């Protein structure tokens, strides 16, 4: 029983015939060898979102990002000219990690006038140039100009900082993000600077968690208890149908309805949601800022009055959720091995004007964590059983089109990389 129209082909999936409709092989999520290929073919050569410009508001502000999926760590800094730059986080002298505190594998941030290596005191300016060498006269014809920090391609799109670890990459991040990215430009991301960020170590392949957040087929079942009993029964009876799906190159999006913000009937939601006027979909009342009406073209592509949230899946590991009540959420999935990854969920709100607004945002953030904990643990159960290879192919339905697309895209990148004859590096320790 269709509640929302589908494309003329009869399904979203058949609207994109290259996806096929057959069962999907999940070997790409359980194979250590495939993961090593993904590190080279995907994470070492696509644009990766590593943060926001608000993390580097002034010259000298920096943060580090650990990228075991690409075998490196990068340091992002705003230089004196106001540009955001990225460097491999390695001292040119003898390879010490340049920026870290206490624990070399933990990310850090701060403010500095220059970077100083802990080991022998070599110093680098914010633009990466080597400015001081301890006991320089002991070296042999050392040309300091040739020993600056190794730059990483770094670009900013709508305030999101991206790096690309392929020095030969010739595609701008704007071009890479394609039509879906272009259709988000102008959204007031920069006004939403009240940040809640959660991190979890998850015992599954990174793609399984993308899968979990790229379909809502699971929502009426897995999250049934989060609604009142009557509402849960009703939701399970309806099932889930998206308003719209869009596939655009390696990226995709799902547009969903959102009956909870605010609910038509107060008895549909929990007591605390009624008192605070907030919940999973965020505070029910939109903040009074410009840029939310009209919304950019890629948002709510069906132009549905019932629209609640759009989930953009930017390949490989960056999801951006734009919610009808005027806030956004990002997901990042950072692989640490073929069957583990670090998940980050970050909520961004317009700074609250008073305690009530602050508490509404707190409820949204707490609710997010409750849901994500349910999602995360399911993944570990899935990973271990897929690894059994007792079943190797899985039927994906039309509401799981983005999963079909994600796995197909990952396999495509790996296959193209192998075909290009690029040297396959020895597996790096992660």
């Amino acid at each position, binding site marked *: 029983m269709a509640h929302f129209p589908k494309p003329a082909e009869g399904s979203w999936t058949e609207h994109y015939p290259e996806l096929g409709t057959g069962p999907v092989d999940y070997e790409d999520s359980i194979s250590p060898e495939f993961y090593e290929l993904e590190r080279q073919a995907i994470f070492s050569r696509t644009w990766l979102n590593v943060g926001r410009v608000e993390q580097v508001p002034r010259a000298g502000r920096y943060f580090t990002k650990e990228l075991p999926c690409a075998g490196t760590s990068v340091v992002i800094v705003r230089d004196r000219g106001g540009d955001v730059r990225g460097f491999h986080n390695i001292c040119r002298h003898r390879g010490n990690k340049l920026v870290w505190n206490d624990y070399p594998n933990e990310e850090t941030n701060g403010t500095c006038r220059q970077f100083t290596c802990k080991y022998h005191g070599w110093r680098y300016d914010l633009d990466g140039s080597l400015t001081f060498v301890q006991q320089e006269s002991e070296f042999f014809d050392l040309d300091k100009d040739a020993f600056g920090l190794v730059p990483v391609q770094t670009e900013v799109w709508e305030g999101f900082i991206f790096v690309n670890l392929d020095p030969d990459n010739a595609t701008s991040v704007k071009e890479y993000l394609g039509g879906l990215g272009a259709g988000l430009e102008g959204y007031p991301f920069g006004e939403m600077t*009240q*940040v*809640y*960020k*959660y*991190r*979890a*170590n*998850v015992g599954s392949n990174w793609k399984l968690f993308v899968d979990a957040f790229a379909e809502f087929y699971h929502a009426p079942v897995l999250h049934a*208890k*989060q609604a009142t009993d009557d509402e849960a029964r009703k939701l399970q009876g309806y099932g889930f149908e998206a308003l719209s799906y869009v596939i655009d190159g390696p990226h995709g999006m799902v547009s969903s309805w959102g009956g909870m913000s605010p609910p038509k009937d107060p008895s549909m939601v*929990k*007591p*605390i949601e009624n*008192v*605070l006027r907030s919940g999973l979909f965020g505070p029910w009342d939109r903040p009074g800022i410009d840029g939310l009406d009209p919304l950019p073209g890629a948002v709510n592509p069906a132009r549905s009055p019932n629209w609640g949230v759009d989930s953009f899946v930017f390949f490989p590991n960056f999801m951006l959720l734009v919610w009808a009540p005027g806030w956004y959420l990002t997901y990042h999935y950072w692989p640490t091995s073929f069957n583990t990854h670090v*998940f980050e*969920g*970050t909520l961004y709100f317009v700074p*609250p*004007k*008073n*305690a*009530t607004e*602050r*508490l509404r945002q*707190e*409820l949204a*953030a*707490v*609710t997010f*964590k*409750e849901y*994500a*904990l*349910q999602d*995360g*643990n*399911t993944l*570990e159960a899935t990973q271990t059983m897929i690894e059994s290879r007792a079943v190797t192919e899985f039927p994906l339905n039309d509401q799981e089109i983005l999963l079909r697309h994600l796995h197909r895209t990952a396999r495509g990148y790996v296959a193209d990389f192998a075909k290009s004859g690029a040297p396959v590096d020895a597996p790096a320790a992660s």
Partner: protein
Amino acid sequence: MTAALPPGFADLEPFADWCLPTEAERYAKRLASSMDEMQEFYDAAFPRFEQILAHLDGYALDALPDDAGRLLALSYSLINVSFPVEVWRQPRVPDSGAASMDAVVEPAV
């Protein structure tokens, strides 16, 4: 902890140990509490929530007096225990096993 909360909220003083400034502390206390303890806290604080909001909204968020700041922290805890009390009927998220999720960035106030 005498007069930890603003005048007018003395009935919530027995629950002042829920005035915790970080999400990590609040979540840890939730997991370490019995359902009876959380139900008692919820039953005392939830009916006062609209009065709490009205009191706190009398101040600028970045200029809360100490007692109001504690009341705000208590309110964050009330939100956190609302899940065990209103939804789960147990401290942990069901089926979340050993899964954990840490708040690594949260607002200063």
